[in-house]
């Protein structure tokens, strides 16, 4: 069974050569999104290379979550081009289900509120989509789920229901659930915001390990130490635009715009 030989969560496959070229793996071009008259994203451009970790920071309401949700089309943008690997979707043309599936199959997502399925055991939370989406047998899916639970330190919770787990545990389970589908990129939307600091740390350490293993990640976060030390690039958003973008240290220690300086000062004072 080839599944048993696979290193869980690492992305190897036919698209590996892409990393060798200079082409970004995730590319957002002129993403625009509005709710009615309210424009939430204006012409946002961003790209992330394979294996890169991008942190998106910025004040509340600046459109960070919306941007992240545009990448996997949970929130379809009104305009712009989303490219992930070999899948390109243009915002103005109707999107086929096939393209959507192809896009989402490359993207794992972790939410601020975990969104585990409360009526299913931890194990079933992780095996369900493997069976339904990837067509794995339940034995294969369970094997992979147990490997991932071990990886996030929760093998002993397999038979529990999510409600019996702490927030930090639930979020690690949610990470395992996403990883089980072999995503090429992981999207995180403030994964630790709903957690008290201690529980946040256990989630951050899983994310750090994931980054080290070479996973491509886009992380909306308020954790400045993660942005500075784990991510290689940082984007600061405000009012639906990218204010600043660049290597983490440079952006965080030496922001160019007054707005970015103001935001970073506010964050540091907390």
């Amino acid at each position: 069974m080839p599944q048993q030989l696979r290193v869980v969560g690492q992305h190897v496959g036919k698209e590996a050569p892409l990393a060798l070229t200079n082409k970004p793996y995730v590319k957002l071009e002129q993403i625009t999104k509005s709710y009615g008259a309210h424009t939430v994203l204006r012409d946002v451009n961003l790209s992330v290379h394979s294996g890169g970790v991008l942190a998106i920071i910025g004040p509340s309401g600046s459109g960070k979550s919306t941007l992240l949700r545009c990448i996997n089309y949970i929130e379809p943008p009104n305009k712009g081009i989303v490219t992930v690997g070999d899948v390109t979707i243009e915002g103005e043309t109707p999107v086929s289900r096939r393209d959507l599936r192809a896009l989402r199959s490359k993207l794992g997502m972790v939410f601020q509120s975990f969104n585990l399925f409360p009526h299913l055991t931890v194990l079933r939370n992780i095996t369900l989509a493997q069976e339904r989406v990837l067509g794995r047998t339940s034995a294969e899916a369970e094997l992979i789920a147990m490997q991932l639970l071990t990886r996030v330190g929760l093998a002993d919770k397999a038979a529990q229901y999510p409600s019996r787990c702490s927030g930090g545990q639930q979020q690690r389970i949610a990470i395992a659930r996403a990883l089980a589908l072999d995503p090429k990129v992981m999207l995180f939307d403030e994964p630790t915001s709903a957690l008290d600091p201690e529980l946040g740390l256990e989630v951050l350490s899983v994310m750090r390990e994931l980054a080290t293993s070479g996973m491509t990640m886009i992380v909306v976060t308020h954790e400045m130490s993660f942005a500075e030390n784990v991510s290689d690039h940082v984007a600061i958003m405000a009012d639906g635009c990218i204010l600043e973008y660049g290597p983490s240290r440079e952006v965080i220690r030496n922001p160019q715009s007054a707005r970015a300086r103001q935001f970073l000062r506010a964050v540091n004072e907390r």
Partner: protein
Amino acid sequence: MLYQLGLILRGLPWTILITAVSLLIGCILGYPIMLGRNARSLPVRLVSIAFISLIRAVPPLVWLFIIFFGVGTGAFSMSPLTAALIGLGLIAATNMAEIYRGGLISIHHGQWEAAQALNLGGAHTFRDVIAPQMFRVALPSSATYAIGLMKDTAIASTIGVPELAYQGARLTQETFQGLKVFGMVGLIYILLSLPIAWLSRRADLYLRAKVAR
């Protein structure tokens, strides 16, 4: 007295039968009606809403008359029991559809988003993620409705189904002891509702303990 009780109790199987079957029809048919009510296509939604409104706008008693005396005396004749089951079953279906819908609305949108992000697709999302939670939320109101429906089966007596209220009416005509007879009938309805309430509470507690958020 015991003799009278025995006569009344001859209606008990009928009451249980009508309640159980029309509830079953309701629980099953309510599901597609709820799906139609929430369908993406506007015509399907409008037809479903019209159907629900129509069924609910006319009193249950009048529906039984329409079905039994109206439809039933036409081309195809119908036993009183069949007419009662069709009428109460349809009424139960529209009520169950609304109860399911209440359960559906209560589900956090994050559940859909997570399913979407996992690429589960519409059918699997509904079957594996949404519907189980919907039924779970709908359980207490379904049980309350089941008790209401059980009491409503008394109207089947008007088209001649020999259930509890029918037996009570017949016995009253013979004995002229209405208070006593219908007192016993009322008591039986109360006793019938107890196990339903108890079962639903047990099921609710069990599920709550299992998946409490």
